């Protein structure tokens, strides 16, 4: 008898109290979520399957969705090849430095544009965003010319060096990161910095001790964005670097693993999967912050 009473009060009963509309809304959302999950997960799954096959099996006319003779040879070959590790290292160091440079520029810029009302600050804030709207395919030729001129003028080798990308990528990351952080800083109540000013904090102290901790979710969102953009950038490294030892991962994989019309599919897929891993790991750890950061500006959290 008593078990029956407990069962009635159980949380599973809650579904019964849902309105009909809500149940249908849930069903539809699950339907579309599953649809999109299939759509977006199919390519990586296919990549994973292919990466576990030998070249012979890939070219054989068997079911492409199944591995009959699984092998880790692609992984072993890539991870023991100095070339691939070099690409990986180049990508990592560039992305990390770009993130640091971006944050060092964007945070003070966003703070100044959001809080210090100076002549032209509103126009400047819009201008920052507009520069982000110019596509990189328009910019790479002028940028190349600029760097060539600087190289000739100063004698410092810039072209075909991985470190040139550290100067190029911020043209993409700084405007966007500044823009999202302007929004985030603007959502912090004005009284908070006034309280800090009265407490005796300078602008820099207000930024370091109040704004950065309070806006941390937004900062993390911006960091993830900057990292993803520099990690996945293809056009700029393709244009600015050509020697094998200067290449980054996306360019390196496509240039070294495609020889003429011979596609080394197993290794291409393996390289792409390994290349996708670092952003994935970062997303997994910072997902909660990322979502909070993207929505916080809107709700005045």
């Amino acid at each position: 008898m008593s078990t029956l009473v407990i069962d009635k009060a159980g949380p599973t009963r809650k579904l019964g109290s849902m309105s009909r509309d809500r149940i249908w809304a849930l069903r539809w959302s699950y339907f579309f979520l599953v649809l999109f999950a299939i759509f977006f997960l199919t390519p990586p799954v296919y990549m994973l399957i292919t990466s576990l096959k030998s070249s012979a099996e890939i070219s054989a006319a068997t079911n492409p969705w199944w591995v009959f003779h699984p092998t880790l040879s692609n992984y072993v070959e890539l991870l023991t090849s100095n070339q691939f590790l070099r690409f990986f290292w180049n990508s990592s160091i560039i992305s990390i430095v770009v993130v640091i440079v971006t944050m060092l520029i964007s945070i003070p810029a966003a703070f100044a544009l959001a809080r210090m009302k100076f002549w032209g600050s509103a126009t400047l804030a819009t201008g920052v965003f507009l520069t982000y709207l110019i596509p990189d395919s328009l910019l790479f030729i002028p940028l190349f010319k600029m760097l060539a001129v600087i190289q000739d003028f100063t004698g410092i080798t810039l072209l075909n060096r991985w470190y040139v990308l550290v100067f190029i990528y911020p043209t993409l990351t700084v405007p966007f990161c500044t823009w999202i952080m302007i929004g985030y800083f603007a959502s912090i109540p004005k009284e908070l910095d006034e309280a800090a000013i009265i407490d005796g904090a300078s602008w820099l102290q207000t930024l370091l001790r109040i704004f950065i901790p309070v806006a941390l979710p937004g900062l993390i969102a911006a960091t993830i964005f900057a990292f993803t953009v520099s990690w996945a950038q293809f056009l700029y490294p393709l244009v600015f670097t050509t020697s094998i030892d200067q290449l980054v991962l996306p360019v390196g994989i496509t240039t070294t693993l495609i020889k003429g019309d011979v596609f080394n599919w197993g290794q291409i897929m393996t390289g792409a999967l390994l290349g996708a891993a670092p952003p994935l790991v970062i997303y997994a750890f910072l997902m909660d912050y990322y979502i909070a950061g993207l929505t916080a500006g809107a709700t005045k959290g």
Partner: protein
Amino acid sequence: MFMADVALRKVVKRYDDVEAVRGIDLDIADHEFIVLVGPSGCGKSTTLRMIAGLEDISDGDIMIGGDIVNDVPPKDRDIAMVFQNYALYPHMTVAENMSFGLRLKHYPKAEIKARVTEAARLLDITDLIDRKPKQLSGGQRQRVAMGRAIVRNPKVFLFDEPLSNLDAKLRVQMRIEIKKVHQKVRTTTVYVTHDQVEAMTLADRVVVMNKGRIEQIGTPNELYHKPATRFVAGFIGSPAMNFIPCRLEDAGSTLQIRLTDRIAFALPPARAARYNALPRTDKLLLGVRPEHLTEAHAHLDPGIESFDTVLDVTEPMGMETLVYFGLDGTPVCGRVNPNAGAKDGAPMRLAMDLNNMHLLNEETGVVL
């Protein structure tokens, strides 16, 4: 001990073309609790923010402790401010919030701890010292905000509508709390509010502001009993003072005021002497507070005159009943004894206490 008097000399604040504050003179004595009160947009908050240094002043001088501070940044003015939305640092604990200013000034750790402990004890928030603002109720947050001001031991406390975000019951409680704190620490305080009850209960002196100007400065009782202008008379007191158009007339050897064709009251001798020199005009308003409009007793004291009217609406408040009626179309409010038998739509005999009346110039709004 330093002197912490504040003085404003012809202070003006202009935003582009708009004058928010139009030349204010104000002297605040050491230890005094001053309340700036007025409707929204009257310039009271702007005045406070100029004292804090958060707004530049367009003209005039502000002095704290005898020194002109016009161009002194807020942190060097030795002031502390409590904001309407508390403005606590969300990522810091209560103790960290309170000690932030001291830590920036590199006070010794032991002294910071001692000051925070003392302020927490004073405000009864010792148990909350390790919590984050998110975990506190509105009233507790307000206490922390006050604690942050107290630990700095500044020359002047500035409060910007600190109780507006609290519910009515808590507001009354915190009002008493603020008064108690001021009795203990005796710091010069400038307090801004739009609530005249807060102004009356807290202030040593109240500054009533309207449209960027000071209407009147005085103790709560002075403002209540001797308002200088129609604005002050109407703003202070709830329900508000009634203003009834009237005419000043000669009546034999004395004066009378005529409210309607059939209602005219002879003025008491003291009032008659005061108003004797005025022109006999109808451009006047009779100002009378609701508590001076009561039910008529069989025997009327001198200066109290009775009249008959028909009530429109009655509002029983428990300890009194508010009655509303019209005099030639002017709505009037009175306060009668709950046992006086006031009923909606019923006739009633009321008495007006002319010893406490005010006579105002209808055009200028000046109390005569």
